């Protein structure tokens, strides 16, 4: 029996670390990874909540809507899809940038054109 808040705190920590990565890293690829990290953190909280609600599935909310268990899963899938698409396009962009700029340092890619 793990408190839900633990999962949420963990996901918060991971998310913040991801943001830190985005802020502090210079390498585009690493920045991308930080984004992936953030997405994962969100996924974690999704799953945790899915589990949480699944325990209460079938009951009524205060707003009168019935609780659907494990619908959090679906969002996890969508997040994964988005991550995959993002990785595909983003890495292609990175390669294009590298071709023209010969660098992966975002501080050197600060003109809004290639």
């Amino acid at each position, binding site marked *: 029996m793990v408190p839900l*808040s633990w999962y949420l705190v963990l996901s918060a920590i991971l998310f913040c670390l991801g943001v830190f990565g985005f802020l502090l890293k210079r390498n585009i690829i690493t920045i991308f990874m930080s984004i992936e990290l953030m997405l994962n953190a969100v996924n974690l909280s999704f799953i945790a909540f899915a589990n949480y609600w699944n325990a209460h599935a079938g009951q009524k909310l205060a707003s009168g809507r019935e609780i659907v268990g494990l619908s959090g899963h679906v969002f996890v899938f969508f997040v994964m899809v988005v991550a995959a698409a993002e990785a595909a396009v983003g890495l292609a962009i990175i390669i294009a940038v590298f071709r023209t700029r010969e660098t992966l340092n975002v501080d050197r890619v600060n003109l809004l054109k290639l």
Partner: protein
Amino acid sequence: MVHQVLFIIFGLICVAGAVNLLVQRHPINSALSLVVVMASLALIYLLLGAEFVAAIQVIVYAGAIMVLFVFVIMLLNAGSEERSSGSRMALLIGVPGVLVLGCLIGWIMINNNKQLGGVSIAATDFGETHPIARLLFRDFLLPFEITSILILIAIMGAVVLGKREG
């Protein structure tokens, strides 16, 4: 009890991996530490009873996306990043902002610990394939199809970008 111990272990591994992602200077190390994070996240999903998502996490994230990252790193033969101070803003505003953010969220969670209650490996059919499939292909069919469109577009974009001009 066992769960808590396991959770703490894997959670610590997660955080360690994430921190390692930050401190490592070489992108490939960061990538690998991210893989570690994802793998241990998959295990945490298992703790939550979400087997399917765990497997997918391993296959898609660790197995496909991160491989792609590593592949690109190898392709561009990216060296370790050089120190360059491109933006003071990131330090002046971003870092405190993120700190505040994290502290606030954590504070809320800890405060509402009681109300939130706890979770354990849920009912047997929680993470199984059938209910999820039912959810995906019945209740959320349209978004699902739309995501497939999204993927298609992403593929095309990647191809277009990847082509050498001309």
